[in-house]
């Protein structure tokens, strides 16, 4: 695939001068949370794009079937064996990885934590991830645009996977905005909205029925953006609905106006940048940058939804769209890099 080739030109020369090797075949790995859910695949695709673009990288990608911390630890341990040139680790349960990560860094395997910050007690310098608090805030900001200052009523919030750190952060962000800017609204929840599609639908259906007077139902997981519009459509009830992540069906709902907005963590970008930084350092011999690289959040609403739908068509369309973004970000790392400690 023709990925963005941002600083490849300068890369060659740098490779020549620096200790890196621009040609040497690289064996790298990208281990992610689960192969069965789209957000994580987006990151995997991003990582693959970066590898393909270099052209000489064997990327061992692997993920457990279904979110399963211990199983992922096992896969990561395998990656330590067969991906000496660098590993990107995307996980929902970072704290399980303390030992294996140290095992990897002890063997001087370059590492990048993706999506969730590296756990304390590890020596991983680079974390590429969006701020889920920021994502929640962004969704909140979009939400209040549709709610008059003095509005009253219930706002019901759902959580697809109780016990999932990043969803909690999103909710915190979302709630903070609403509390601050629409104090008259009462926030209910978060309630368990389940993640399996039919369960998620049934859960929301129950929640909607159980809260007849609520003015808005907000989710922060991928499936919510699919279930809520369907419920609006079927019950004919009118309420504000918004969610995070950008599954195709949800994008369509934004287009139809059934969702006021989707707040996208830009998964593809995370995967791409993490892998790209690892590869570049190998090629240029420069050390992997350290700190928290936040590629940012994208708010999808009526204004940009068509563009995003187009971008999500396939790998090429994604790569094409992101080329500009990637070039911009890689051009001046410092604006995107913050101390890891600040990651949220």
């Amino acid at each position, binding site marked *: 695939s023709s990925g963005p080739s941002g600083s490849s030109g300068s890369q060659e020369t740098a490779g020549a001068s620096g200790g890196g090797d621009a040609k040497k075949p690289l064996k790298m790995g990208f281990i992610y949370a689960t192969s069965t859910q789209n957000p994580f695949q987006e990151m995997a695709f991003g990582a693959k794009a970066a590898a393909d673009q270099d052209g000489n990288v064997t990327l061992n990608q692997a993920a457990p079937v279904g979110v399963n911390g211990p199983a992922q630890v096992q896969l990561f341990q395998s990656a330590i064996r067969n991906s000496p040139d660098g590993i990107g680790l995307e996980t929902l349960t970072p704290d399980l990885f303390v030992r294996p990560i140290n095992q990897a860094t002890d063997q001087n395997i370059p590492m990048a934590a993706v999506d969730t910050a590296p756990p304390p007690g590890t020596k991983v310098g680079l974390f590429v991830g969006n701020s889920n608090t920021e994502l929640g805030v962004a969704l909140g900001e979009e939400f209040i645009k549709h709610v008059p200052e003095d509005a009253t009523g219930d706002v019901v919030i759902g959580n697809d996977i109780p016990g999932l750190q990043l969803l909690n952060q999103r909710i915190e962000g979302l709630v903070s905005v609403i509390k601050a800017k629409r104090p008259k609204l009462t926030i209910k929840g978060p309630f368990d909205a389940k993640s399996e599609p039919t369960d998620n639908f049934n859960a929301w259906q129950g929640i909607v029925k*159980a809260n007849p007077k609520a003015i808005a139902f907000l989710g922060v997981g991928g499936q919510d953006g699919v279930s809520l519009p*369907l419920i609006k459509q079927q019950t004919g009830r009118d309420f504000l609905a918004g969610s995070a992540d950008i599954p195709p069906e949800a994008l369509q709902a934004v287009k139809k106006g059934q969702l006021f907005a989707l707040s996208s963590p830009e998964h593809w970008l995370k995967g791409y940048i993490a892998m790209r930084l690892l590869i570049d350092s190998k090629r240029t011999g420069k050390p992997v940058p350290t700190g928290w690289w936040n590629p940012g959040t994208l708010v999808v609403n009526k204004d940009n939804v068509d563009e995003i739908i187009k971008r999500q068509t396939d790998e090429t369309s994604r790569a094409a769209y992101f080329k500009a973004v990637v070039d911009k970000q890689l051009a001046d790392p410092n604006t995107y890099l913050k101390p890891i400690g600040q990651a949220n």
Partner: protein
Amino acid sequence: MSVDDVGTKGTPALDAPDVPGERPGGGLAALARRVPAMESMSVLVATIALVVVIGILHPDFLSAAQLLDTLQASVYVGLLAGGMAFLISMREIDLSVGSMFGLSLISMGLLINQGLSPWLAGLLGVVLGGVLGLVNALVVQYIGIPTIVATLATLSVYRGLSLALSEGQQVTGMPVEDSFFTILGGKIFGVYTSVWVLIIFAIVLTVVLRFTSFGYRVRSIGSNPDAATFSGISANRVRMQVLVLVGLLAGVAAALGLAFFTSGDPNIGTGFELQAIAAAVIGGTPLRGGTATVVGAIFGAILLAVVGSGLQYFNIPVNWSSFATGAVILLAVSLDSLLRRRRRRKDEALGL
């Protein structure tokens, strides 16, 4: 089982002169007359009790719309549980039902996107379900491994296929105006079509199980495999038939699901296998085999659905919801087993 009760065995319900009731038609009448004795009664009562309790605490729950939605929510697991009851009654378990459901659904969606008429696609999807069941059967028979192991493997094979085919993406862009979606996804006489379909299958499957030689063969195998083989019932042949039946049911559920959700997610149906097994067992189909109640299995699925939607009314804090779910299920099945007690005592009474 003690010699003493010669002739006195059998509950009055059993003694009821229902020889006329043996005709399948009248058979249903007979069933109706035997209702109090039916295995599935206790779970029905438990479910109703649960609904009433929730209704007392939160009257909105008793709204027709809510109850209908709850019924609708139980359709998919309900259909799978019906098939699972057949399997369990012959001492087999199929763990791949959830994945068969998902794969059929995704395939239908893709076929429709290929421009196939939704009805045709739906039909093919159901057939595909049957084929997947057949594959399970062939694996079990020719590789010679237990059904539970074979289907554990196909569980992820089929799930993997729906991910591969859909490239991990949702399948969207269905022609939602097509009659397939408006009819199967809509309502008839104010009740979801899928619910009607569930009712029809409850009846058909019950009749098949109780009044056809096929049904008798299924239960015979579960009741005494050796004797069944000796008397010329081919366990392999019957197992194959039942596994295909389960696949077809998964296909039907998939068609209803696609019509209702008007889009397909490759993860749809994950975890349905345990729910279906639970529903069947809660409904009164024991794992030791030999007997089954399709109606009970479906009531079991409804019970689980009631627990699900009912809890939404209690504003359970997110971190407590899974605890609450388990607790309520426990309560419901306790009531159910309380109602069963008397019958079970009789069964357990050993004699010389």
